[in-house]
């Protein structure tokens, strides 16, 4: 799969909706987004982050200033053509209800008049990329999909024509936190493969810290408060506004910089369905442990079994385990992991890979250690 990424520059860009003299939505904004990076525009409402993003694909026309993509001024080409070269994902996705999933994904290639064979191939490729089995999903209509599935189709659709630039406007804003974590992780995995330039708008500073290579914090009126890597911003906020916006718990926020995969995982004692209880009890006793993780045939976690539940020698069944709390993934930030574990009142979080297979466990203590060990600000 070919991959391309563009450099985006904003040069003294501003947008004013009223007559000259009225307060601007975006005032004199200049920044450069390096190729292949995720740049997150974040700020309170009214800061012009969405307006700024929309000026890149000219859904909003700048009042003054210049925007270039790979050096080419965006006003140099017809808007419609420009947009076909940029991937666009919005909060409620906006999948076309009257087209199947396959047809939705094929929209831009069709507009660009790709040969049908190539389109078909590309649709398969993309559905695989977002982990939706083409055979199952290709001919379904959006109404038959879940929220998460729709988001994924939206991303696939935006990537269809292999654009060098993607614009995403609060794409995960409308889903629940657990699904949001999953989708964020998937996007990060995707980006690791395709390395596109992505401009990502969000109001959630934690999402910004998790997703961004670079964060642009905007104040009301599109004023750039700070533009730097997440680490740098947390370590050295440029102003009181930034400090306030990022939040007083900067120490905790730094937990957003680390991910589950950055910590060593422990191996829990595992049991399989069908194992006699007596065997498991003996293993637990010799290991000095009280709980074992029950796995199914695919190494997917079914839940925990306590030593006190192993009275006789019958075989373990799938529903013997107490269903565990939400699972964690390697890309999940330590902050989200801690939040999930505390929310479910568990000491251990089960970490799974993209196919939901168990990789190991992580403990609340291990995360707290990280908090303690990092230099305080």
């Amino acid at each position, binding site marked *: 799969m070919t991959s391309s990424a563009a450099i985006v520059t904003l040069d003294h860009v501003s947008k004013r909706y009223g007559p000259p003299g009225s307060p601007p939505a975006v005032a004199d904004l200049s920044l450069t987004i390096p190729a292949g990076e995720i740049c997150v525009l974040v700020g309170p409402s009214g800061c012009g982050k969405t307006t700024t993003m929309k000026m890149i694909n000219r859904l909003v026309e700048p009042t003054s200033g210049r925007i270039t993509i790979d050096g080419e001024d965006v006003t140099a080409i017809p808007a419609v053509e420009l947009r076909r070269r940029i991937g666009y994902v919005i*909060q409620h996705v906006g999948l076309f209800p009257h087209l199947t999933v396959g047809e939705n994904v094929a929209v831009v290639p069709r507009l660009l008049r790709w040969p049908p064979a190539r389109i078909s191939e590309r649709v398969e490729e993309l559905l695989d990329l977002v982990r939706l089995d083409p055979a199952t999903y290709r001919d379904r209509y959006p*109404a038959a999909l879940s929220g998460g599935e729709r988001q994924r189709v*939206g991303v696939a659709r935006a990537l269809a024509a292999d654009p060098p630039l993607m614009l995403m406007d609060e794409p995960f804003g409308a889903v629940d936190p657990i699904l949001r974590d999953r989708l964020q992780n998937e996007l990060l995995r995707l980006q690791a493969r395709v390395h596109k330039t992505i401009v990502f708008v969000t109001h959630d500073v934690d999402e910004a810290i998790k997703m961004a290579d670079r964060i642009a914090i905007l104040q009301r009126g599109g004023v750039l408060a700070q533009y730097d890597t997440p680490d740098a911003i947390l370590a050295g906020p440029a102003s009181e506004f930034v400090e306030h916006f990022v939040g007083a718990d900067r120490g905790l926020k730094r937990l957003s910089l680390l991910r589950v995969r950055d910590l060593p995982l422990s191996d829990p004692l595992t049991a399989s369905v069908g194992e006699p209880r007596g065997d498991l009890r003996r293993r637990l006793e010799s290991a000095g442990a009280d709980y074992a993780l029950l796995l199914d045939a695919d190494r997917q976690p079914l839940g925990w079994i306590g030593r006190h539940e192993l009275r006789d020698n019958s075989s373990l069944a799938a529903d013997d385990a107490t269903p565990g709390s939400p699972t964690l993934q390697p890309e999940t930030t330590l902050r989200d992991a801690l939040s999930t574990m505390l929310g479910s009142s568990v000491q251990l979080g089960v970490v799974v890979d993209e196919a939901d297979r168990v990789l190991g466990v992580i403990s609340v203590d291990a995360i707290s250690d990280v908090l303690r060990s990092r230099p305080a600000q």
Partner: protein
Amino acid sequence: MTPDEPFIRWDWIVANLDDIGERTWEHVLMTVIAVVVGFAISFALSLLIVRWRRLYAPLIGATGLLYAIPSLALFALLIPLTGVTLLTAEVALVSYTLLILLRNIVAGFDGVPRDVVESALGMGYGPWQLLWRVQLPLALPTIVAGLRIATVTTVGLVAVTALIGQSNLGSLIVQRGIRASFPTAILVGAFGSVLLGVLADVGFIALQRRLTPWVQARRG
């Protein structure tokens, strides 16, 4: 209602099948002309409304006013202008379709979700492509519903045009029936137009189902 023997003369029906067929065909033709012309006008007007929203109220008001005039009166008002002709009939018939079609077409376009329009524009659809490939297909169910109601209404109104000399199933009711004190013709004309109306209704429902396969899809 069970007609007894001398009430309906079945032999007459059989003997006059040709005429009945011709009247039916004329009835269908008049209906089709009115609905097609009415749709063309309404569609053009609604494109204007989509562009300039403030036109909506006055246009709905005007077409509503036309609609409120009883059919016989509307035909009659036109007679001094266009005579006792097919043109008079069709002008009035078209006028009656306008309110229904205009309302439904505009409602159809209004019903297209905003995020669909936004994502379409963001992906690079030009304005005409947006109309043809996105807005129109999604507005179709409502538009077809409007066509359905307009057509069934028109079928009924066509019968009244027999009073101004037009030839259709209504003439069976009026000229061959009432004026000749001949119940059979009345009943044939009456049931004929009812049947046409029902067929049109059912036909449009089927059409709508065929045109919008995505409406049936729902999460299990």
